[in-house]
């Protein structure tokens, strides 16, 4: 009935019901393959080609701007020379880009050789849409053999793990996200801890005992005990050790080995590292 309580408050009641649904989703979590994960996966699939097109478009636009600025300073020269210059510059930029890409892929291949054959390369096509979390969007998905939980690496070190997937795209939770954690240790002193991200952009080593000999400049590598990242991969370098931190543990800040903003290609480990047996041997 149009004049009734339900009709008059239909917007607020609907919104209230939707808020309860979203709180239920947050509290229970959505596992890959769940009914609730399907719209998310479908949307990732829809947006990823547009995302990739935006990335290509902005790459092209920046190249055009650079070319225009260069040409502006030589406009006194004749048309033939300008065209020649533009063509040469364009070729050079393209070759430089190809060289960089080639170098990246070469480094990826080296890393892939080290890891064995169980790795897949993927292009980065976007980052987190809200900026409140640190995630990346890759142009490869389940059709390329990727699954949620797989480790993502770059030639410089550990990048993160896959958290969502669609047939042709996937999302990676970076290790510096505040919801990320991985098992690592100091390569020099062998002190173990959990590498976790911070809300305000940074990486720390949690639960490192105060008695441990951890120093600035030490290297943190993965332990392989989390069952996701292979052992011995570079995570970062210690840039701060706070012994007066409150609580039982040291305050250790880490500089990530990977510059996540510069990532163009990554490598996904499609087979998890061997698990430790009960005696602690792999």
């Amino acid at each position, binding site marked *: 009935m149009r004049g009734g309580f339900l009709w008059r408050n239909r917007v607020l009641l609907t919104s209230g019901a939707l808020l309860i649904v*979203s709180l239920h989703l947050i509290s229970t979590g959505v596992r890959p393959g769940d009914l*609730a994960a399907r719209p998310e996966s479908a949307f990732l699939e829809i947006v990823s080609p547009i995302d990739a097109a935006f990335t290509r478009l902005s790459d092209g636009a920046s190249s055009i701007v650079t070319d225009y600025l260069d040409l502006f300073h030589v406009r006194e020269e004749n048309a033939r020379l300008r065209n020649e210059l533009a063509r040469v510059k364009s070729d050079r930029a393209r070759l430089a880009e190809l060289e960089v890409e080639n170098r990246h892929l070469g480094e990826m291949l080296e890393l892939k050789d080290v890891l064995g054959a169980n790795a897949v390369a993927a292009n980065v096509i976007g980052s987190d849409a809200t900026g409140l979390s640190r995630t990346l*969007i890759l142009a490869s998905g389940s059709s390329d053999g990727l699954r949620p939980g797989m480790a993502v690496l770059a030639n410089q070190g550990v990048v993160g793990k896959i958290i969502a997937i669609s047939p042709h795209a996937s999302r990676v939770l970076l290790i510096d996200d505040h919801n990320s954690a991985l098992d690592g240790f100091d390569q020099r002193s062998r002190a173990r801890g959990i590498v976790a991200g911070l809300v305000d952009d940074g990486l720390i080593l949690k639960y490192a005992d105060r008695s441990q000999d951890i120093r600035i400049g030490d290297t943190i590598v993965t332990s392989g005990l989390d069952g996701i990242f292979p052992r011995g991969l570079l995570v970062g370098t210690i840039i701060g050790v706070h012994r007066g931190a409150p609580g039982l543990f040291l305050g250790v800040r880490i500089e990530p080995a990977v510059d996540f903003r510069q990532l163009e290609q990554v490598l996904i480990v499609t087979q998890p590292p061997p698990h430790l047996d009960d005696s602690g041997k792999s």
Partner: protein
Amino acid sequence: MRLILLFAVFLVLGLAFESAVPHMVSFRALIPNLIIILVVDLGLRHHGVLPAMLAFAMGYATDALAGSHPGLNAFMMTMVFVVSYEISTRLMVTNALVGATVVFFGVIATALATVALADGFSAHSHTGALLPGLTLEAAISAIVAPFIFSMLAASKRMTGLPVRPMRE
């Protein structure tokens, strides 16, 4: 149906922009929060069950490309819709200035609430560091909002949808 299609197109383009551009811009705070602007427009100008569901769906779609807790953005966008709707029903006029103000506070409130919900009280000590960047992002979003509202209004006129709020 026209409303769904219109907002779906704006949503897909907005999300593609928001996820592609930050990868090339070193300072994330310079990129406006386009999704909140769309939801505020829905709340201010479209009163009904469908717009409420649309706001939820837009948040859930954002979850596909942002964050690690599915449902978090859906919750936040529904909240922004409810607040915008309540403001719209109480004010005599809901112009671009009102919209920009709601967008400004909406960006800050949703970001802080998102961090608090996702991280619990452990995030409390770090939220202060987020505020300068957040305020800048909110200000840029508020500046951009009137342009997006006009683009939406033009698109609505083209598709025959009401531009002014339908008072209940």
